[in-house]
């Protein structure tokens, strides 16, 4: 029970951010109006995605260093959760864009970059599916994971900032600090970021555990059959 405190706090932080995100006062701005509340859901999910992919890449590097299959399990689990958070982030972004920009898909550089980044990780799962040998699969997908993360950095963090974009913080636009004059939004935003990252880690650790249990079950079945 001692190690569970962060799971409870993740759940509490998320409940707080959902309630606070929907009920607290937000700045009144033209066009954006009440939709600025999407910031509490959309942006923290992207932060969560990047954090999950970072952990996944870290474990891929660890796998290449010492070839322990546990690192491969961690890597695939965190990549899965990162992908889920990324999909949620893109859907929430599309809902937001529908009300402020006029259409769900606006061809914004950051939007396109994020979609391509998700494609990279879909390709990662296809690669895993098409290698039969387990050790080879772990090694190749670890290599691709690191390579994909390196290729994702310019897509999400560099190119959108160079081109004109309607996203805050891109193409010379100020970040969301401009809207948040009295820092009240931070009171919900930061807890939401921490909450999503912790929740993602929790789900990923559950995935790791189920994976390990399935492996054990298979081993037991093999023993029975032989």
């Amino acid at each position: 029970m001692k190690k569970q405190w962060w799971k409870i706090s993740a759940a509490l932080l998320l409940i707080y951010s959902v309630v606070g995100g929907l009920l607290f006062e937000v700045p009144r701005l033209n066009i954006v109006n009440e939709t600025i509340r999407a910031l509490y859901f959309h942006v923290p999910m992207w932060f969560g995605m990047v954090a999950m992919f970072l952990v996944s890449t870290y474990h891929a590097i660890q796998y290449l260093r010492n070839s322990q299959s546990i690192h491969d399990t961690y890597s695939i689990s965190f990549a899965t959760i990162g992908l889920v958070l990324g999909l949620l982030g893109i859907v929430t972004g599309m809902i937001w864009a529908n009300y402020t920009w006029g259409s769900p898909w606006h061809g914004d550089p950051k939007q396109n970059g994020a979609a391509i980044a998700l494609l990279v990780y879909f390709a990662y799962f296809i690669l895993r599916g098409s290698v039969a040998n387990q050790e080879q699969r772990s090694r190749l997908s670890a290599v691709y994971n690191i390579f994909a993360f390196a290729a994702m950095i310019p897509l999400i963090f560099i190119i959108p900032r160079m081109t004109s974009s309607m996203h805050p913080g891109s193409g010379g636009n100020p970040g969301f600090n401009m809207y948040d004059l009295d820092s009240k939004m931070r009171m919900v935003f930061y807890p939401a970021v921490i909450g999503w990252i912790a929740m993602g880690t929790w789900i990923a650790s559950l995935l790791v555990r189920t994976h390990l249990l399935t492996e054990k079950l298979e081993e037991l079945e093999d023993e029975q059959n032989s």
Partner: protein
Amino acid sequence: MPSLKKNLTKIKTLLKKELTLELRRKSVFSGLALYLFSTVFIYYLTFNLRQNLISPLVWSALFWVTILFSSINTIAKSFIGEKRGQDLYFYSLVSPESIVLSKLIYNFLLCLVLALAGLGLFVLFLSNPIETTWPFILTIALTAWGFAASLTLLSGIAAKANNSHIVMTVLSFPIVISILLLSIKITKNCIDGLEASTNYDELLTMVAINCLVTAASYLLFPYIWRT
């Protein structure tokens, strides 16, 4: 630095081997040339039906799609085509680093020749909307480098998977797209005849991305080689 010198000679030898093999198996190279020619000729026949339909932006889209897919096809064979056992033989002779570097340089040269030949064919059969030539040639060279750097490693990965060619396309498309986005942007500037200095930012970013990808390939290749 005797080891560096030794590695350089090894890379030179491997490069020479690749080039000799390529020149000896003329079928591969001429196959690629024919592939490129057929593609451009189909564009020509299609757009010949109604002249002046091919606007500069259509030209740029067709050009980069052609270069992308012929590069993927070319580089895919750098590991996928190799016979089993051949890699084991090389493994016992030289370090994986010198193999990846020699393949990378060789693929860069191949991509560059391919892209320049493609440019020639496009100018010959379609039109030449490029106003500022030298920045565009530089962009082609940088793109060839980026393609070679990322696709060489991916070809090594794909060679180990089932149905390698599909996996190769799936893996490479999202990775090279950031390089491609930048080159499309510079191409537009070149078509509009903007001054070369407007492209410095993009060109520098391309060099940075290329360095990143090259470094990643160099560091990661030994791990896929070992399996």
